[in-house]
């Protein structure tokens, strides 16, 4: 053992005393330096072109409530590729969710609409953009981002919105600046289904109360100015008609008041399930388009757009929606 140990130590000593050759290659050193500098220059040019294009990732958000009742549940939470626009890759995520709300013994199916749009101009491919998108979402959820600034921007309808510019650092080192909504909007977009349910119920109740009060006051104090919209459903030769009429209030304000009980009559005629399906199909424009018609209602000409729908029992329904002719 000692002999072996001695041999090993001697060998290590031998290795330690070896003087390896000293070497260099001045020509290669210079030419590689030049090549590296050329590469850096090329990269800088590329980077400045990319900066011009700017990796603009925009998250636009739109959340609204629909007071229209319709049935059916769609729940799409996946990003999908919409297309390319001016060199950018556009993705959308539909946050639409339908919830049941109750009002005066009746159940309404309300749509909670949300749409997120993701636009990128910096990614080199659609796949890269999609990968970035999910990574950014993850970083956002983890709070790994830096708020650069908040800018105010006037949008088309004249409103001023705040745009929050956040910097995200992707795993490959790229820095991405995202234009996003305010933290309140973000909270709105990331609500749980239960949170949405409660909020929709609350807002719906509030709106219904306000609406009922307005209609009551309009009928009591107001003067019907004109019919602004007509909706007709023709089924088995019978026509159900509803109006939307404009009332002028004493204070000068105007209120749209629904008239007629077509909806309730139709609901009881068709049954709740069929009625819900039909209203959903109308909302989603699933009917077969028919030629428009011009007709006079209470001395005023209306242009009706018309579509044909088929009920589950095979009956056909023609839905017409009329707007005053200009």
């Amino acid at each position, binding site marked *: 053992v000692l002999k072996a140990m001695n041999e090993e130590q001697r060998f290590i000593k031998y290795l330690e005393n070896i003087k390896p050759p000293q070497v*260099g290659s001045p020509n290669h050193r210079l030419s590689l330096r030049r090549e590296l500098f050329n*590469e850096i220059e090329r990269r800088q040019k590329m980077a400045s072109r990319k900066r011009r294009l700017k990796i603009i990732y925009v998250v636009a958000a739109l959340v609204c409530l629909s007071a229209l009742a319709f049935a059916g549940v769609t729940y799409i939470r996946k990003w999908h590729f919409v297309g390319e626009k001016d060199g950018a890759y556009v993705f959308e995520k539909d946050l639409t969710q339908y919830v049941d709300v109750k009002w005066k013994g009746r159940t309404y199916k309300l749509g909670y609409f949300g749409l997120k749009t993701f636009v990128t101009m910096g990614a080199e491919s659609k796949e890269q953009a999609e990968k970035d998108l999910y990574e950014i979402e993850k970083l956002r959820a983890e709070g790994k981002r830096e708020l650069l600034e908040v800018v105010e921007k006037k949008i088309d309808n004249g409103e001023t919105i705040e745009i929050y510019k956040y910097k995200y650092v992707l795993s490959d080192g790229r820095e991405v600046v995202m234009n996003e909504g305010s933290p309140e909007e973000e909270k709105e977009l990331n609500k749980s289904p239960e949170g949405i349910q409660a909020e929709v119920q609350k807002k719906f109740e509030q709106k219904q109360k306000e609406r009922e009060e307005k209609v009551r006051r309009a009928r009591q104090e107001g003067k019907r100015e004109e019919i602004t919209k007509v909706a007709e459903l023709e089924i088995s030769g019978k026509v159900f008609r509803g109006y939307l009429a404009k009332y002028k209030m004493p204070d000068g304000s105007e209120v749209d008041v629904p008239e007629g009980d077509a909806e309730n009559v139709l609901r009881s005629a068709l049954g709740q399930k069929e009625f819900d399906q039909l209203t959903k199909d109308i909302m989603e424009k699933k009917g077969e388009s028919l030629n428009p018609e011009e007709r006079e209602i209470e001395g005023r000409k209306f242009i009706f757009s018309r579509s044909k729908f088929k009920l589950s029992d095979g009956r056909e329904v023609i839905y017409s929606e009329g707007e005053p002719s200009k």
Partner: protein
Amino acid sequence: MTDEIMGCNLRIQSQSKVMDEDEQLVVAAKDDPEAFGELYDKYYPQIFRYIYRRTLDVSLTEDLTSNTFFAALRHIGRFKWRRIPFGAWLYRIATNEVNMHYRNKRPPTISLDAPDEKNRQLIGSLEVVNADAEENLVRLEEYATLHKAILTLKPKYQTVITLRFFEDKTIDQISAITGAKEGTVKSQLHRATEQLRETLTQWGAKEC
């Protein structure tokens, strides 16, 4: 005792100063070609020398050194200072380049003849640092025999032997370069030394 402590402190301070300079250069090099140039000038000789000692082939060394620095340029944005020093990172890239080269090639043919004439001739065209040409030629001959034996080892053993004995790296430096734990490095070194000694003994070429 006081001297030892002072010496130790001084060494630590001086080491940390070097790290700070490199760190600043690395940060700057992400955008500034001059900063990358400074790092290049500082590390080119070490990396070239290391690859040459692993391959003993000048034109291959030039190619692999180029690959190493281009890879460093490509990935410098991802370099994380806290993990390993920049120098160790470059050594790691160079090690990968060399090992990859050997993996992609057939195992080298080992000859028991004298060092290649090719290397003898090349010595004249190389930049000789701190040694005159004649002494370097002697070094090359001696090293070439040893190098042939080293090439019979597994790449990871070739790496630790070269770094430890010919690049004078400490165990923790080798650990930083290879990414292996210090204990692993020690046992790799032990096995590598043992295998190398056996090979040279068989060849009858050991000069202890």
